[in-house]
């Protein structure tokens, strides 16, 4: 089915960004549908943050076309910024104000803000409303970042490594919040270098390396069809040694293996067939050399 233009929250064509001699982004194409959680994955320095900062309107592109909610982000139209929420990698906040004061101030910058209490609830900051922000823990500050990005009731939310430095429980909490954003119909662009995070949250991911997108698709489908990665079949032979083979065609391989084993009267102990995980695909694609 062809996508109607209006169904796209973000469209990027031939995006390039050059800093002096360094070309950080070298021709990127992707689109994000409305209501989708889109993950940008890649090692540090791959060009993820540069790409996202161009979409957010922080940086001008060198070349290419970018449309965000029907606007060119580079023009920094207030009409666009009112509809976008941004969680940056690390940003300070007014230390001497309370959580409620900071949120109320930011709410006042938007034409149709969400209620401050609602946002406090959504971000999991209940009980911290009257605390000065300088007394918050790292995880609580990150939740405040999220609350600040949500207070203007944006349609599109950028999350740049939202759980870096979180303990496992805090990560789960953040994941729940991101899922609830999707349930609210928001479009989310997530950059992360945690593969489980992308696998758990994203409808589609793009793996970025050296300023290019290597592969793009649903996390469960990635690598399955493009021949870049194989199914892994493992078993123990008669003497208990672990054998492992990779194949594009697991059906044939299993047929050969099981046929041979039956002829020899052996059992294939511990036989398993695994599809490549996102992590396998990622490591294979981003490996150096």
């Amino acid at each position, binding site marked *: 089915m062809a996508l109607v233009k209006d169904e796209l929250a973000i469209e990027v064509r031939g995006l390039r960004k050059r800093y002096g001699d360094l070309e950080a982004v070298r021709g990127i194409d992707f689109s994000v549908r409305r209501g989708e959680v889109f993950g940008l994955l890649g090692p540090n320095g791959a060009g993820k943050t540069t790409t996202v900062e161009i979409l*957010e*309107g*922080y940086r001008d592109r060198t070349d290419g076309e970018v449309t965000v909610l029907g606007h060119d982000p580079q023009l920094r139209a*207030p009409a666009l*910024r*009112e*509809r*976008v929420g*941004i969680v*940056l990698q*690390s*940003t*300070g*906040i*007014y230390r*001497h*104000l309370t959580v409620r*004061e900071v949120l109320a*101030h*930011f709410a*006042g*910058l*938007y*034409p*149709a803000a969400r209620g401050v209490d609602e946002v406090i609830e959504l971000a999991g900051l209940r009980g911290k409303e009257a605390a000065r922000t300088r007394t918050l823990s790292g995880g609580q500050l990150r939740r405040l970042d999220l609350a*600040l990005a949500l207070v*203007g009731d944006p*349609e599109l939310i950028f999350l740049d490594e939202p759980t870096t430095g979180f303990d496992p429980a805090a990560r789960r909490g953040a994941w729940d919040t991101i899922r609830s954003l999707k349930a609210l119909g928001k479009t989310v662009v997530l950059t992360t270098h945690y593969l489980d995070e992308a696998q758990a949250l994203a409808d589609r991911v793009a793996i970025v390396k050296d300023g290019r997108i290597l592969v793009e698709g649903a996390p469960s489908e990635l690598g399955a069809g493009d021949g870049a990665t194989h199914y892994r079949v493992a078993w123990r032979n008669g003497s208990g040694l672990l054998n492992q083979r990779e194949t594009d065609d697991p059906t044939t391989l299993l047929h050969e293996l099981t046929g041979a084993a039956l002829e020899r009267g052996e059992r294939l102990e511990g036989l398993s067939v695994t599809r490549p995980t996102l992590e396998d695909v990622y490591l294979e694609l981003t490996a150096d050399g």
Partner: protein
Amino acid sequence: MAEHAANAAHPPSFASLSWRQFRLERKMFWRNPSAAFFNFLLPLLFLVLLCAVLTDQADRDVIVPGIAGMAVLATTFSALAYNVVFLREQGILKRMRGTPLPAGAYLLGIAGNAVANTAIQIVLIVLAGKLFYGIDWPQDVGELVLFVVLGVLCFASLGVALAHAIPTFEAATVYVNMIFLPVVFISIDAANDPAFLKGIAEALPLAHLIDGLSAAMVSGDGIGGQWSALGVLLVWTALGATLAIRGFSWEQRRG
């Protein structure tokens, strides 16, 4: 999207956004017990100490407008240089840049906070001059306002321009005071400086601001006698504003 166009609540106006930001900055100023407050108190402390040591009226006639000039410098030049470096390093500038708040409204809120401090200091200094240090009410209030406003424009823009040259907040105290203290010392009574220092003081804007303030507060020499002071201040304002706008960066340079 259609429903967005339909319920398009009116975006807050530029003036109301500037005012909101100004009020927030004031609230934070009074809550912050540290550097900003010390910076605010410094000129008043100098006023009390210098007038305690120098009891001649002739000296005090020089000190009071001199401290008024120092107050303009401290509340605008120093305060904004610190503030902009801090906000940039903390990432607060970048965060605000990601909201619909127009850059002009934001900077107006921050500058307004500095100017409010200037106004408070000038009032306190005029009051102290009248009550304790034998100086009458200002001879020419219009001239006083003119010079304070021009001083604010000049030193606020120079303060923001200096912020671009300061790499980190840790270094800010050194950069600011390397300029602030020597300039105050040579400018407060420039007429009696040795020739070499006098030349430097007269090339810089503070001595001219103090001349103007002195004329307005003490001698009653009208604006007609202050053209050269006005001219020097305007030249520095133009330079400061150009550098402040050209070099402005919303985020910390990397590396």
